């Protein structure tokens, strides 16, 4: 009997299971999150037939890789154009945040400080600390030396500390 092949995730299931993650990345890492969100899903659905469900990467890992690359590409296009886009209103802390962070004001202050970081620093801080992406993988996805990514992480943290104290 031939071996079973795993099925690709249904697009609707992908959105239901991982839409919150994709939106969190777009909301925090792109000055035009709605556009980033729509474009990210166009890319994800086009790339979906090439995803190997039996491979080593989980759906979540694959999805984060695609979205990360997409946000880096958007940032590079903005840099080439010379656009200056200001950080918009801050991300709401969310219903569970105050229990973990003590007060909603603390998390709101942190989100505000995060939103004001330069985009390359903010991307490393968010991906590494919120989404536990190893620095080596961030470096590989962005085509940078690990040292540069570490430098961005340390500068980002230092800037957050400066803003919050």
């Amino acid at each position, binding site marked *: 009997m031939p071996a*079973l092949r795993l099925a690709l995730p249904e697009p609707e299931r992908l959105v239901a299971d991982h839409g919150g993650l994709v939106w*969190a990345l777009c909301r925090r890492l792109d000055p035009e999150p709605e556009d980033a969100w729509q474009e990210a899903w*166009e890319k994800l659905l086009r790339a979906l037939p090439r995803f190997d469900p039996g491979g080593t990467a989980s759906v979540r890992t694959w999805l984060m890789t695609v979205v990360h690359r997409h946000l880096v590409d958007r940032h590079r296009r903005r840099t080439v154009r010379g656009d200056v886009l200001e950080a918009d209103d801050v991300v709401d802390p969310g219903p569970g945040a105050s229990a973990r962070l003590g007060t909603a004001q603390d998390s709101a202050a942190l989100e505000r400080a995060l939103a004001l970081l330069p985009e390359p620093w903010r991307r490393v801080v968010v991906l590494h*600390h919120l989404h536990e992406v190893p620095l080596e993988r961030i470096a590989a996805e962005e085509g940078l030396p690990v040292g540069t990514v570490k430098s961005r*992480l340390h500068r980002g943290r230092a800037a957050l500390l400066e803003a919050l104290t």
Partner: protein
Amino acid sequence: MNDDVNLSRLLDGDLTPPEAAALRARLAADPALAARFAALQRTVSALQGLERELVPPGIPRALQAAKPPVRRHVPLLTYVGLPMMLAAGLLFALRSPPARTVLLSGETVVDGQVELIAGGLPVTIDGRVRVIVEPPAAGVRESGAEIISMDRSHLLAALGGAVITVTVYEGTATWTPSAEAPARVVAVGESQSVQVPGGPAGGGAGSGATSAPRPASLPEALARIDTLERQLAGARLQAGINAGIVQTHEGVAQPWPKDVPAPFRPEAFRRHLDAALEASPGASVVEVDCDEFPCIAVLTTSAPGADWVSGLEAVHERMNADGTFGDVGVMGLAAATDDGEDARRYYAFAMAPGPVSEEGRARTGFRGKALVDELTHEGQEDREALEVMGYLSPTGEE
């Protein structure tokens, strides 16, 4: 700010042992600095506590465009203000004609109202059902797309010899295992399997060896698979070309060789650098990157004037004035921002035992440029970059 950056490096173990020891000594003696370090630790902890998922703005347009037209009897509710689980349930609870999908092989879990053609047999699902199709050996083309969504009903010929298993988690599934048999209802908790009659070389159980005639839609599906496979091959070729271009530009990461001479190792390099800086008024180190071989040091200077680069070049000349580093190749890159009196000036250099391979030069050049670009905040449009200087022998000749 520099103290804060070093505190962050201390947190991750990114300082050299002497640097870490010196900073810990300062922390022990300076309560304000110790409080700052504690605040940094709390900030990192707070970052890890932020919400990792946020309620999205709605269904992406790309998904709406891909779905077949849906007749709705109730307004479509958006995700805003609703927990994700509830929103997912609503998505599949819309009153509409059931979607139709085809499963040639593999398995799928279906939620909602779906008419699934599994291995050629229609299965009407209203609930949450797992369907597995194990095709006969010669029944299905190898393809990356095992599930095909179609917007019109297709009755594919039964794949003779295929084994189909239906397992119901919630609701019901109704199917007709063969043309002669009555419809069967599979209830919650039940699992039913059937082998489709017929198949290659007369194999398979059931009521006969004849297979049903193939309709015109099967060649269409196979032609689409051919097209997708050609597109995938083209995309893979382009990706390979792009990877080659990227590798040419970025070089290949250079791990630390086991037999690198002692002066080039990170701690010794930093020690010699610090000693040379003491004899270089106005020059200071901004960053030292030893994640790959060789170490790259980035210096800056407070001395104005057109000759600032020479002043910083003198630092690595002093490092090797007594021949400690031997026959060495040096790569340097200088850059300054175009801010007039406020211009920031950086000089990045690396030293490696000569001769250095082309691969090593390319990679080191890429790393140095990335470090300098980072410090000038990627303001390429306002950066006045000088040329990579190439290699110098200890005598200064190229």
